[in-house]
C-alpha cells in the first residue's frame, strides 16, 4: 500500500468535509463574531440598584439643587433637582460634568509638599505637623498678622472657619476674590449703607435694562437667570442689552444697544440725566447728595456728551430712558459678563442709581436691598494676647489685587504665610505673571485644593480637599439672587482619594497648634461644627436639603445716598495707545474664577473659539485690515503678546477684539490645558481709586497678520 498524493488528498478532503459537517464551523463562526465584539478593553459598566441622592452644587455661586443618579452606590449622572427654589430642575453644563471633576485623573490625591521644583506625596499627619510648625514660628515672631488667607467668598461656614482660624491666630488678613456678590455688596454699601446686598427680581420684571450683564452667559445664578429669560415672552417682558458685542444675551434680547467698551457707566448716567431732566423719577427716600448729583449729571452726562462717548444716537438715549421710566416693573442690571472681574464701582453704582430713580427698590420685578444677617452663629473665638494684638491691626490691603501689589512692591516679605482656598489668583487676576511673582515672595503658601492649578503649583504644601460630591457644606445663595436660600451640599460618595473637608483640615491644623487656637476649634469634626453653627436651620437643612430664609420683596424702602456719584468719579479707561480695544468675553461654556473647565464642557466650545491649541479672537471685518478670516495673527497689548487665530464677526463693534476668558490653563491635564491663551495675560490691572477694584475691562491692542 503506497501512501501517495491521492491518499493525502483524501485525508485532507475527508478532514475538511468532516469539519464542515461537524458543529465546529458553525460554532466557531458564531463564537469569533462574538469575540470581536467583546474586546477586554471596552468597559462594561456594572449594573445594580438605582438610587437618587439630592445635594446642592457649589461649583459656582449659583446654588443649584442637584439630583445624582447612582447605580449600586456609584454616581453616574447629575441632573437638576426638581422643585428646588433656585433652579427647579434645571442645571448648567458644568454641574452636569461634575463627575469629571470627581474622577479627574490629574487630581491631587494625597497631601503634597514641595521639594525644590517637584511635589512629594506625604501623609496628612506630616502635612499638618509641617504646616503647624511653620505657623507656630510666625506666632513666635510676634507678627501673626502676616498670615493671610485668600478665599472665594465672604459667606458660609468654611469661610467662617478660615476667618476664625485667622482671628484665633492673630490676623485680620482674610481676602475674598472679586465676585459679582462682592461687587453688589459694595454697591449696596455705597448707596444704602453697609450690611446689605442686592437681589434682582428678574423673573417678575417687565423691562430689563442690562448693562452687559451676561444673563445667559453665567451672570448671577445662571440657571435661575436662564429661566427668567426663557419666560420673558409669556410675561411680556422686554430685554434691552447694552454691550459692545452681540453676546448670546444680546442675541436673545429685544434690542441690542452696542456701545463703546468701558462706557456703560456713562450711558447709565446719561439715562439718569434724562430721567431727572424730565422728572421721570420718584424721590422717595433720597437722602444725601441728590441735589448735587442731579446737577452734576445733567451737565457732565448730557445727551451729546454721552452720545459721543458711547457711540450711540442721542435719540436712542432718550428713548431708552423713556421706556425704562414708564415700564411698570423696570430693573437695571450691572456687571459686564459674569460681573466678577474687571468691574468698577462707578458703573455698578450708576446702573443701580437707575433703579433708585425708577423707584423699583424692594418692589416686585425690581431690586431687593437684602440685609446681610448672618445665618450662622459661631461661638466667640478664644484669643490669647498674641492673637488680640494681631487681629486688632488694620488689614494690610484692600483686596487681593492690592495685596499682590503690596507684596511685589515691598523688599521684605509682607506676608509670611498664605492660605488659598477655592481661588486661583495666579490665573484669574489681571497680569497673572505678577501674581506668581508675588507668590514666590511668600515664604510659605498652603493651597487647600484638590486640583493642581496655577496657584497650587506655587504652593509649598497642598492639602487636598474633597470635591463637592464627596463632602457636606452649607451653600448660601448670592450673586444677585432675589431670594435668600441656604442649601446643604451632601456627599454622594465617600472621598475617592485621600482628601478631606476644608473644615476638618482646619480643625486638625488648629489642634496641632494647640493653645487658644485649638480651643477655638473644639469640635470633633466639621460635621459637628456645621450642625452647631447652623443652629435652628439645621433641621430644615438636614431634612429638606435647603432652607428658605427669605423670598419676595423685603419690607420698607431703603434710603439712597448719592454722595459717591455726585463727586463724578472718573471713568476707568483702557490702558495703552493702540488703536483697537481688546475685551475679555465671558461665555457659558467656559468657567471663571477657580473652577477649570471640564472635558465635556470644552467639547461644547465652538471651533471658532478654540481650534486645536489656538484661541480664536473675534473682530469686525471692517477693522480687520490685512487679516484673513480664520487666519493666524499676532495680538499685542501693552502687557503682552499672543499668537491667535482671527474670526470675522459682524456681531462685534468695529474697533473691538473679543477674546474668551477661561482658556490658556497651564497645569498638567491634557484634556483641558495648554489650549489657547489666558486673556488675563494680556490685560494689566487698572485700579479704580476709591473702590480699589481692578477695573480693567479691557486694554488697547493691535493685531497684525502672523
Amino acid at each position, binding site marked *: *500500500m*503506497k*501512501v*501517495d498524493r*491521492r*491518499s*493525502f*488528498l*483524501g*485525508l*485532507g*478532503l*475527508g*478532514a*475538511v*468535509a*468532516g*469539519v464542515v*459537517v*461537524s*458543529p*465546529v464551523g*458553525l*460554532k*466557531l463562526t*458564531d*463564537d*469569533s463574531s*462574538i*469575540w470581536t*465584539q*467583546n474586546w477586554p478593553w471596552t468597559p*462594561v*459598566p456594572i*449594573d445594580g*440598584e*438605582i438610587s437618587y441622592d439630592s445635594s446642592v452644587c457649589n461649583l459656582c455661586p449659583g446654588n443649584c439643587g442637584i439630583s445624582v443618579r447612582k447605580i449600586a452606590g456609584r454616581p453616574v449622572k447629575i441632573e437638576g433637582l426638581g422643585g428646588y427654589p433656585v433652579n427647579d430642575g434645571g442645571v448648567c453644563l458644568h454641574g452636569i460634568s461634575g463627575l469629571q471633576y470627581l474622577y479627574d485623573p490629574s487630581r491631587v490625591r494625597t497631601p503634597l509638599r514641595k521639594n525644590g521644583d517637584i511635589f512629594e506625596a506625604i501623609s496628612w499627619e506630616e502635612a499638618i505637623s509641617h504646616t503647624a510648625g511653620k505657623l507656630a514660628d510666625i506666632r513666635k515672631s510676634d507678627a501673626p498678622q502676616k498670615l493671610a488667607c485668600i478665599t472665594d467668598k465672604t459667606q458660609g461656614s468654611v469661610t467662617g472657619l478660615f476667618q476664625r482660624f485667622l482671628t484665633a491666630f492673630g490676623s485680620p488678613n482674610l481676602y475674598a476674590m472679586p465676585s459679582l456678590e462682592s461687587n453688589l455688596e459694595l454697591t449696596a454699601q455705597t448707596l444704602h449703607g453697609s450690611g446689605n446686598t442686592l437681589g434682582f427680581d428678574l423673573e417678575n420684571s417687565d423691562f430689563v435694562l442690562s448693562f452687559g450683564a451676561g444673563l445667559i452667559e453665567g451672570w448671577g445664578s445662571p440657571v435661575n437667570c436662564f429661566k427668567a429669560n426663557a419666560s420673558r415672552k409669556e410675561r411680556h417682558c422686554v430685554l434691552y442689552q447694552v454691550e459692545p458685542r452681540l453676546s448670546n444675551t444680546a442675541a436673545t434680547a429685544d434690542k441690542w444697544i452696542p456701545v463703546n467698551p468701558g462706557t456703560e457707566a456713562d450711558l447709565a448716567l446719561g439715562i439718569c440725566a434724562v430721567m431727572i431732566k424730565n422728572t421721570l423719577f420718584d424721590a422717595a427716600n433720597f437722602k444725601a447728595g441728590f441735589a448735587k448729583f442731579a446737577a452734576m449729571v445733567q451737565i457732565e452726562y448730557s445727551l451729546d456728551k454721552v452720545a459721543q462717548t458711547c457711540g450711540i444716537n442721542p435719540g436712542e438715549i432718550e428713548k431708552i430712558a423713556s421706556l425704562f421710566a414708564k415700564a411698570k416693573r423696570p430693573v437695571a442690571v450691572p456687571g459686564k459678563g459674569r460681573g466678577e472681574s474687571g468691574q468698577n464701582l462707578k458703573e455698578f453704582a450708576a446702573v443701580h442709581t437707575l433703579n433708585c430713580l425708577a423707584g423699583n427698590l424692594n418692589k416686585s420685578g425690581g431690586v431687593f436691598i437684602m440685609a446681610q444677617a448672618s445665618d450662622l452663629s459661631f461661638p466667640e473665638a478664644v484669643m490669647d494676647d498674641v492673637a488680640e494684638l494681631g487681629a486688632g491691626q488694620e488689614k494690610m490691603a484692600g483686596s487681593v489685587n492690592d495685596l499682590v501689589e503690596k507684596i511685589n512692591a515691598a523688599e521684605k516679605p509682607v506676608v509670611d504665610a498664605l492660605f488659598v482656598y477655592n481661588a486661583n489668583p495666579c490665573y484669574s487676576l489681571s497680569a497673572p505673571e505678577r501674581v506668581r511673582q508675588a507668590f514666590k515672595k511668600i515664604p510659605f503658601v498652603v493651597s487647600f485644593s484638590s486640583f493642581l492649578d496655577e496657584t497650587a503649583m506655587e504652593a509649598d504644601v497642598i492639602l487636598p480637599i474633597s470635591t463637592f460630591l464627596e463632602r457636606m457644606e452649607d451653600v448660601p445663595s448670592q450673586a444677585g439672587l432675589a431670594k435668600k436660600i441656604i442649601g446643604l451640599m451632601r456627599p454622594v460618595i465617600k472621598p475617592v482619594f485621600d482628601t478631606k473637608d476644608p473644615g476638618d483640615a482646619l480643625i486638625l491644623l488648629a489642634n496641632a497648634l494647640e493653645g487658644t487656637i485649638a480651643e477655638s476649634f473644639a469640635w470633633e469634626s466639621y460635621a459637628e461644627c456645621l450642625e452647631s453653627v447652623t443652629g435652628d436651620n439645621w433641621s430644615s437643612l438636614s431634612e429638606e436639603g435647603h432652607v428658605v430664609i427669605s423670598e419676595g420683596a423685603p419690607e420698607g424702602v431703603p434710603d439712597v445716598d448719592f454722595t459717591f456719584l455726585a463727586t463724578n468719579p472718573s471713568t476707568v479707561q483702557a490702558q495703552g495707545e493702540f488703536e483697537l480695544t481688546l475685551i475679555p468675553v465671558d461665555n457659558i461654556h467656559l468657567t471663571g474664577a477657580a473652577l477649570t473647565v471640564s472635558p465635556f464642557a470644552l467639547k461644547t466650545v465652538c471651533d471658532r473659539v478654540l481650534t486645536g491649541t489656538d484661541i480664536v479672537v473675534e473682530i469686525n471685518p471692517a477693522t480687520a485690515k490685512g487679516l484673513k478670516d480664520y487666519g493666524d495673527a499676532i495680538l499685542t497689548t501693552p502687557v503682552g503678546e499672543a499668537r491667535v487665530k482671527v474670526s470675522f464677526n459682524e456681531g462685534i463693534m468695529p474697533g473691538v477684539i473679543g477674546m474668551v476668558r477661561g482658556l490658556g490653563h497651564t497645569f498638567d491635564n491634557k484634556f483641558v490645558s495648554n489650549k489657547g491663551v489666558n486673556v488675563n495675560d494680556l490685560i494689566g490691572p487698572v485700579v479704580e481709586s476709591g473702590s480699589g477694584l481692578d477695573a480693567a475691562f479691557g486694554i488697547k491692542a493691535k493685531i497684525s497678520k502672523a
Partner: protein
Amino acid sequence: MSKIENKSENGSMEGAGEGTGGDPKDDKGLGLGVIFFMVAFLVCFLSGWLLFPKLLYSKREQPFNFDHVLHTSEAGDCETCHFLREDGTFSGMPNLASCMECHTDEPMGETEDEAIFAREYVAKEKEVPWFIYSKQPDCVFFSHAAHINAAGMECKTCHGPIGESTTSRPYEENRITGYSRDIWGKNIWGIKKHSWDRMKMDDCAACHKEETGHQGYCFQCHK
C-alpha cells in the same frame, strides 16, 4: 509500451477500456484515498461533535455549593431572593447583604458549604463571586418585569428547573466568547429539547414571534 501499441492495433473499444481502467496500482491508491477520506471524515466529525466541546468550554465549580431545594423550603420561592424592585428592575443575583438577612458568620446548619460561606465571605464582608449561567452580553436589555408580570411567564421557562436542584452544576464557560455554555446550549449543535436549553437572540425572537406575532424591534432588547 506494448499495451499502447496493442490499443492502437486492437481498436478503440479495447483501448478505451484499458485506457480508462488504469493501473491496478491506481485502483489501490484511490481506494486508499477513499479510506483515508472516510477515516479523516469520521475522526474530524466525531472530534467536532465530542472533543471540540471539551476543548471549547472550561469547567469551574461555583465558590461553594448552593442548595436551592433547601432554601426554597426554608426561605421561600424564587421571588424571595430574586425579586422585582420597586422601580421594576430585577434584583438579579442576591448580594451578601440579602443572604445576611438570615445568615451570620456562625453557620446555622451542618454543611461544609455553609461553613465556607460563613468563614470566607460573611466574616470577611466579601461578596461571593458567583458564576452567572444566564449572563448576557452588554448589548442586551432584558426586562424581567415585562416577562414575569406582563407575559406571565415562569422562571423555569428560560432558566430551567434550577429551583429543584440541590447542587449547583459546574459553570462551563466558552473560552473564546467568555459566556456560559447555557447561552448557546449544552448541545454543541445548538439543538434544544427544552425551552431553557438555549438563550441566544434567535430563541428570544422565536418566542416573541409565537407569542406576539412579531420578532420585536431591535431597540426592544438592545441598548
